[in-house]
């Protein structure tokens, strides 16, 4: 499962690179049968590193949510679907330790996926020789990317809660899809800064969306969401009957 998620993230960032490749070499692309609409591609601007990083940023804000959500759902949910929860409950460790240990695994796994996504994206970008590389641009992009990945981490705890509550991973996965849809909708109506699942995406593209700036309250909402998810998960493990 771990390597499966790594491969998936590598695949997605490779696809991002492919989009730039199509822009850089439309003649090769058309020979390969990929008829691209250059006008629609140009919404990312010229094919250079700055815009490529923006593309990668948009990608991680979506795929990061999905990947993080999947990881959180699976780490907790599989214990229920495989019926191995009862083995954990009779260990001589506190249940809080079990929850925090799994959260640490989720965080590390998500960070590894983020890192793999970015590195693969950069490697593909170097391979296809995207023009206008700049260390300043790269560093700025890396900073935004790191913060976006960090913000996404707060959203794993509600999914962990749902996995424990539903004793599986279908409900939390369904919830991930729902949040993506709602995040898009809140973006359309201008409520993005107040919907937790839209906030990382807005941060990633905040330099280009003056219409929906993030406020302090946005970060508080995100933090509160993460905290509530964690407390809910702890409550289930410590207080609920484990039938």
């Amino acid at each position, binding site marked *: 499962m771990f390597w499966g998620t790594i491969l998936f993230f590598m695949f997605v960032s490779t696809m991002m690179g492919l989009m730039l490749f199509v822009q850089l070499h439309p003649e090769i692309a058309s020979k390969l049968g990929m008829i691209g609409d250059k006008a629609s591609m140009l919404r990312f601007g010229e094919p250079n590193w700055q815009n490529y990083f923006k593309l990668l940023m948009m990608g991680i804000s979506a795929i990061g949510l999905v990947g993080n959500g999947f990881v959180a759902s699976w780490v907790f949910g599989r214990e229920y679907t*495989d019926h*191995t929860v009862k083995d954990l409950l*009779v260990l*001589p*460790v506190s*249940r809080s330790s079990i929850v925090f240990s799994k959260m640490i695994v989720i965080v590390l796994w998500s960070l590894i996926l983020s890192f793999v996504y970015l590195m693969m994206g950069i490697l593909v970008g170097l391979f296809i020789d995207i023009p206008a590389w700049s260390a300043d641009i790269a560093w700025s992009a890396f900073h935004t990317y790191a913060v976006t990945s960090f913000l996404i981490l707060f959203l794993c705890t509600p999914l962990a809660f749902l996995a424990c509550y539903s004793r599986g991973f279908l409900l939390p996965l369904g919830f991930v899809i729902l949040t993506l849809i709602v995040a898009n909708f809140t973006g359309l109506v201008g409520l993005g800064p107040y919907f937790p699942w839209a906030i990382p995406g807005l941060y990633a593209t905040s330099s280009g969306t003056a219409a929906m700036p993030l406020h302090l309250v946005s970060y508080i909402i995100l933090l509160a969401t993460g905290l509530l998810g964690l407390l809910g998960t702890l409550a289930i493990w*410590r207080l609920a*009957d*484990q039938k």
Partner: protein
Amino acid sequence: MNTDIIRTESLSKQYDDVHAVSDLSLNVRKGEIYGFLGLNGAGKTTTIRMLLGMIRPTSGVAYIKGKKISSNNTELWKSVGSLVEIPFSYPELTVRENLEIVRRLRFMDDKKAIDKVIDKLKLGAYANRKAKNLSLGNNQRLGLAKALIHNPEIVLLDEPANGLDPAGIYEIREMLSDLAANQGVTIFISSHILGEVSRFATRIGIIHEGFLVKEIDANQLETLCSKRLLINANDLEKAYKVLSQQGYVLKKTPDHLLEMNDEFVVSQPDIVATIMVHASCPPTLLKVEEEDLESYFLKTIGMKGGIH
């Protein structure tokens, strides 16, 4: 000095209007093998889950080694091994890998513990097989291995013989008997097969519809099983009249025999034979029948099939 290793005081668990366990008070002393018997749905697994802190009782309290059981008191589990319902393991990992996980999660330094428990449970041939590819019986053995790998002082087993073949049942029985007799391990084992449990339990508790209906020492079980004398004759009505006139109490069975339950008569059926022969009504069948354990169990819980 209280040597109770496991003790419950009026333990109850209610779900909405279902009383899964009601007012259960039992105690298990060190080195005992307590057989907890009941039908499916009687409350056995609920009781074991409460003893493991997985379920909070609605009322009452349970103790292990004098310490109250709760989800917070996780130190207790250092000395407890358990198997609850069907054992499951991580399907993509092998037997050895699953046991390695348990060893690490229990902070056990002894890496040889895995080989020892594999040998003990005869899992050597399957050590490198993935758990998802194990048969039911071998999965059961793996579950038992996980329960015993850390050499616990107390073992709680929920129907451990499930899925095991007769050889496996014998091995587990011998192993548990040895643990209790020679290593002082306290064993609490639930089952619905009285015949199996009675072979090695030292005490038996029978639970029915959430209530503990009887507790007996296993060595008394035989004396508690009732016996009856079955009689047949060519002229059954005459036999009934003759024996009734002698003051004996008889019953007519559904399969057209006569039944006598008097302890003295059952122990001396020749007296009945003599009476019947003298009355020119010799018996064609004279049989002492002992209640089997299943019948005793069903009688105890008040079900059909038990001999009353």
